């Protein structure tokens, strides 16, 4: 979590220097969901998500250098500068795909789970979706099919109460999202999204269920993004949400909570944290330097991979 936070803070700090010509959607404040979930997955399990990619990419084990190269539009970016920040992938570690279309990744993840089931790979697929993603009809269709076929998929819903600058109340009637999911005959639970251990444990239950043929799980985790929907900095001052609301959530920062827990229980001490911070800082420096020194794509790169070649040739 700390690593994700520090990486994003550095991205944010540098963003207005205009060297990362890519949209960004920071997860600052929402690190526990990504980390808790991925902690319960194996490397061979697959993860899909939407536009808000940074957290899950790193939590799933994605390569930081490749990520920053992508964000700097370099040819050695994790998607060759063709995907951008909304499309961070690292197949090696099961960071399997993302879609910039809200809801787009949801049925795709179900399809990946279908493939895993057909191939009997014992693989579990998780997909991150936001509260607004629930409004897309395709999410219903995906839940229905996953439940019907009892597929090994985990729908991880980060409910941060907003879609861009639109509050839940302008988009959904008052109701409980995971109770809706439960009517598809899916195991559905709520979990405290700022408590990384709770997230890890809820996900582990879901993974166990999926791996043993028990079918899909829907996990709803209330969280809060401390920054604007997109771009650097907070935008609460524009008036769509209360600054006080954000400040209240900042009191339950997932990283501070976990830090306190670890230090209280003696698992970690201040100097260990300091060492961590130094390690992370060094890694971040290296990765930015690497990205900035990396080559731009050329015109020839543009023409590559429009079609996959004929496998028989």
């Amino acid at each position, binding site marked *: 979590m700390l690593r994700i936070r520090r990486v994003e803070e550095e991205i944010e700090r540098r963003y207005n220097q205009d060297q990362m010509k890519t949209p960004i959607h920071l997860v600052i404040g929402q690190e526990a969901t990504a980390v808790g979930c991925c902690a319960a997955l194996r490397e061979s399990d697959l993860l899909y998500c939407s536009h808000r990619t940074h957290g899950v990419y790193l939590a799933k084990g994605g390569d930081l250098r490749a990520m920053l190269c992508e964000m700097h539009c370099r040819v050695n970016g994790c998607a060759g500068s063709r995907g951008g920040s909304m499309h961070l992938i690292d197949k090696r570690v099961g960071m399997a795909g993302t879609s910039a279309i809200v809801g787009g990744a949801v049925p795709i993840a179900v399809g990946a789970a279908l493939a895993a089931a057909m191939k009997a790979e014992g693989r579990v697929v998780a997909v991150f979706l936001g509260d607004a993603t629930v409004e897309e009809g*395709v999410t219903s269709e995906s839940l229905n099919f996953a439940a019907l076929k009892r597929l090994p998929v985990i729908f991880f819903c980060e409910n941060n109460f907003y879609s861009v600058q639109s509050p839940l109340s302008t988009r959904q009637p008052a109701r409980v999202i995971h109770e809706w999911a439960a009517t598809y005959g899916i195991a559905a639970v709520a979990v405290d999204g700022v408590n990384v251990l709770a997230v890890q444990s809820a996900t582990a239950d879901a993974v166990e269920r999926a791996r043993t043929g028990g079918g899909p799980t829907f996990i709803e985790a209330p969280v809060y993004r401390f920054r604007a929907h997109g771009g650097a900095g907070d935008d609460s001052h524009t008036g769509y949400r209360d600054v006080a609301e954000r400040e209240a959530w900042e009191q339950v920062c997932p990283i501070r909570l976990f830090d306190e827990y670890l230090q209280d229980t003696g698992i970690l001490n201040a100097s260990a944290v300091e060492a961590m911070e130094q390690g992370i800082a060094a890694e971040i420096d290296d990765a930015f330097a690497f990205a900035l020194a990396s080559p731009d794509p050329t015109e020839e790169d543009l023409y590559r991979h429009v079609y*996959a070649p004929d496998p028989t040739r």
Partner: protein
Amino acid sequence: MPWDEGLVNSLVYDRPDPREGRVISYVQAINEALALALEHEPDVFVLGQGVDDPSAMFGTTKGLQTRFGPARVFDTPLSEEGMMGVSTGAAMNGMRPVFMHNRPDFVLLAFNQLVTHAAKFHFMDNGETTVPMVVWAAIGRGWGSGAQHSQAIQGMLLGVPGLKIVMPSTPYDAKGLLLSAILDDNPVCVFEHRWLMRKDGVVPEGIYRVPIGKGICRREGRDITIVGASHAIELGLQAAKLLADEGIDAEVIDLRTVKPMDEEIVLASLRKTGRIVAVDTAWKKGGVCAEIGCLAAEKGYASLKAPVARVGLPDIPTPAGYTLEQFYYPGADQIAEAARRLVRPDHVI
């Protein structure tokens, strides 16, 4: 027999010569392609609304579930967008789904997944992912189903990078192109035509592939080129016969695939004839007719001895009623008339 089935059965096609090989119907050819793919490619699976029901997707999926089991041939919920996404996700992870639709209209519900996901992932993923999937649908005509059940959508998809679009016109091609589509590592739309389904043809047994992206000359001619695909080619060949009686020698080019389009075969024919009629089963504005016509003027200008002509649907939604349908759909006559005007500009009807 319901009237629309009767109508399809009453269509008259050239009888193939059984001495040239085994004769089967268009529907059987598709069925055989699916069965062979399922048999030889463990990653292939077939899904779609009613693929396992008694009517078996016009008969094309008959017996497949019994033979290959419900895990590999299965019915789906009524969730076109969702199931297109499921197919895409499965294709990205080692499977080769064949997702079948009764009507192209239903594919419109899934354009977001087809156009913005399936067609683009290979590029967006820098080549790391392939999306080997087939989206199959049958274009209707003369079944009284009207504007919402009779659309032909190849024109809408022609501009979408990353997609391939296949439109067979013979039983031989229906099998060979479908096999190519299934074995291709890209998303391929296969658009069939309801009125071709009872056509018989000589079809070899076993696996063979008709290459995607290559057209074929169905009839050689000197005076004018008729070019298109699918059922429009059937009509084009009928038109060529009518024209032959009047001394006009039409060449008929079957594109087989409208995307990627075999530009060279069109341009070569145009060099020979100097005149071109673009034909399509869909609307003539925009789409395949426009692309062919533009191609002729762009890369074949030096050969053009007359205006290009196009024969397709007028810019009107499909009417439901039988009488209105007769005015709506062009037939061989309209193609012949378009050709006549180009070859004999002084000709008056």
